[in-house]
């Protein structure tokens, strides 16, 4: 039996009936990674001792007759921007190449507390800046559905690990689409909760008003269970909401009759027919499930990319000022004085995209330009958020394509950062508004080579339970489960 293709509930069935042990399940994953990750390169590092020790603890609890914890024995991959005590956390950057995290992120601690088995750390764009995982300082990750193509980004390693059965679920981070877009590219499910729903203690900061931690899985149900585990108040993150966490798995009733599904006209305008056709089929499916389809308008969509890239680069330039070669990270050995050491360490330690964003962010915050760029963008953010608040007076959820493009070839788009930014159009709006969003598989493009398409579903603040219920019903009705698309490896 192949233990690497299972869902969480299938793993639990095996553990309960003693058909498998957590150690066997962890080992099966580590072996598969050993054999196959040479082609995908989803992981940057593995922590087999930690994984097997945790799996052994789970097996001991089962042997002692204890009830299974919600994620007992579930193999998890963690994006390498999330701290894991005692293991390297590099953010896929040279500047943190040898950084060993002194503590666990709250999300990691909660996963392990629920019995999950952390296998290792996954590749990503450097400091989560990018949409293809090609900005990793170490190596690019390949899309397990087509190894010549990118897995999306920035959490491309986590998405690829789940798609390639190198982990059952994974954690990623999403600032402008970095969980949702790679989920679409790798044909899996990925979710960003409401801003503040999941603690960011232990997430290396990129853009603090936009950063989220969230789950990947091969089914909506698995994603719901991970989110339920990691969500909720954390005294160590003052931006984490104190609101109670709903039952997400319990909300997956399959019944979505009467749900009002908004379709923003601005999002389908100019969309290529390959992706647009699938999205239309997805919308028809909602209709068949008894949802009411309501055309809506989000009039400021066209200004979202400009707004997002001003705000996220401004915040990044400030957050990344801490990498100066003093307390941690890379230090250049060739320097004349302290200032020269900062500059040489930063220039040698950061890659091109990170420098570009630091430069942009520094410029838009600099004297004389602050009002024209940064303050202007903050005002436009108000308008974009208002669009959503007004839309949610009319509808319960909003559906959109996750990305306007299908997974592209490695190297195809690296030379034009602006073009890369423009493809984030459908994901950055929800990030700016702080609402939750999920990407679920929505079939494959009709013509060769039949690439995955993702449907994004958005809901109002803290309405994750309803969002997951809609996504789960859609997944089941569409037959868009992973088994419908045989894994190519």
């Amino acid at each position, binding site marked *: 039996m192949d233990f690497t293709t299972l869902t969480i509930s299938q793993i639990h069935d095996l553990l309960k009936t003693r058909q498998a042990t957590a150690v066997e399940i962890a080992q099966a994953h580590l072996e598969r990674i050993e054999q196959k990750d040479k082609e995908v390169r989803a992981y940057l590092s593995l922590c087999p001792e930690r994984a097997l020790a945790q799996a052994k603890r789970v097996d001991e609890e089962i042997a002692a007759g204890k009830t299974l914890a919600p994620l007992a024995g579930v193999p998890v991959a963690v994006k390498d921007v999330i701290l894991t005590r005692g293991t390297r956390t590099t953010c896929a950057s040279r500047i943190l190449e040898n950084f060993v995290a002194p503590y666990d992120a709250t999300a990691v601690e909660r996963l392990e507390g629920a019995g999950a088995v952390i296998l290792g750390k996954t590749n990503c764009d450097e400091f989560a800046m990018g949409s293809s995982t090609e900005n990793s300082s170490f190596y690019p990750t390949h899309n397990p559905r087509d190894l010549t193509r990118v897995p999306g980004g920035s959490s491309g390693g986590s998405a690829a690990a789940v798609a390639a059965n190198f982990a059952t679920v994974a954690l990623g981070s999403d600032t402008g689409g970095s969980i949702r877009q790679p989920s679409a590219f790798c044909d899996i499910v990925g979710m960003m909760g*409401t801003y503040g729903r999941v603690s960011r203690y232990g997430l290396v900061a990129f853009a603090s008003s936009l950063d989220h931690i969230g789950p990947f899985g091969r089914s909506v149900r698995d994603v719901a269970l991970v989110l339920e585990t990691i969500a909720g108040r954390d005294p160590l993150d003052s931006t984490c*909401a*104190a609101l109670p966490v709903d039952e997400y798995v319990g909300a997956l009733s399959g019944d979505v009759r009467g749900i009002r599904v908004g379709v923003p006209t601005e999002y389908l305008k100019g969309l290529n027919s390959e992706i647009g056709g699938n999205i239309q089929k997805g919308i028809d499916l909602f209709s068949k499930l008894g949802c009411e389809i309501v055309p809506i308008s989000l009039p400021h969509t066209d200004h979202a990319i400009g707004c997002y890239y001003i705000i996220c680069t401004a915040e990044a330039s400030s957050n990344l000022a801490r990498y100066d070669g003093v*307390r941690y990270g890379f230090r250049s050995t060739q320097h004349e004085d302290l200032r020269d050491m900062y500059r040489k360490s930063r220039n040698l330690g950061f890659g091109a995209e990170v*420098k570009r964003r630091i430069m*942009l962010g*520094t410029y838009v915050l600099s004297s004389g330009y602050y009002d024209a760029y940064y303050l202007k963008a903050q005002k436009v953010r108000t308008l974009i958020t208002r669009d959503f608040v007004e839309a949610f007076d009319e509808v319960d959820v909003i559906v959109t394509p996750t990305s306007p493009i299908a997974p592209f070839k490695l190297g195809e788009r690296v030379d034009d*950062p602006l073009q890369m930014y423009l493809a984030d159009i459908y994901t950055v709006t929800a990030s700016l508004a702080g609402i939750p969003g999920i990407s679920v598989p929505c079939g494959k493009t009709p013509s060769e080579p039949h690439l995955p398409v993702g449907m994004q579903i958005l809901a109002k603040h803290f309405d994750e339970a309803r969002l997951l219920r809609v996504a789960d019903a859609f997944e089941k009705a569409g037959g868009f489960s992973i088994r419908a698309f045989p894994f190519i490896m």
Partner: protein
Amino acid sequence: MAFTEKDVRYVADLAHLELTEDEVKKFLPQLASILQYVQKLNELDTSAIEPMAQVTYPGSQNAAFRADQPRRTFSQDEALANAPESGAGCFKVPRVIEREE
């Protein structure tokens, strides 16, 4: 406002980045085109709009404060474990004050 090579160098200096000549040449057109693109925001009249610094939600209760209780924090060794250079329980940096001989 054209974005020039001089601006690239000025911004790099503010950001404590020491760019090579090649990097300056590469970044100039890329940054210029992005800045040109974001001018698009000026199409919108925002004179009566409040800026939004972060996400707030109606009726939200933020856990902005935690109980003011002492808790375990990093030991000196743990705090210094990732330092490129340390000594005598401190982070070491190149000399910043010149000594008179």
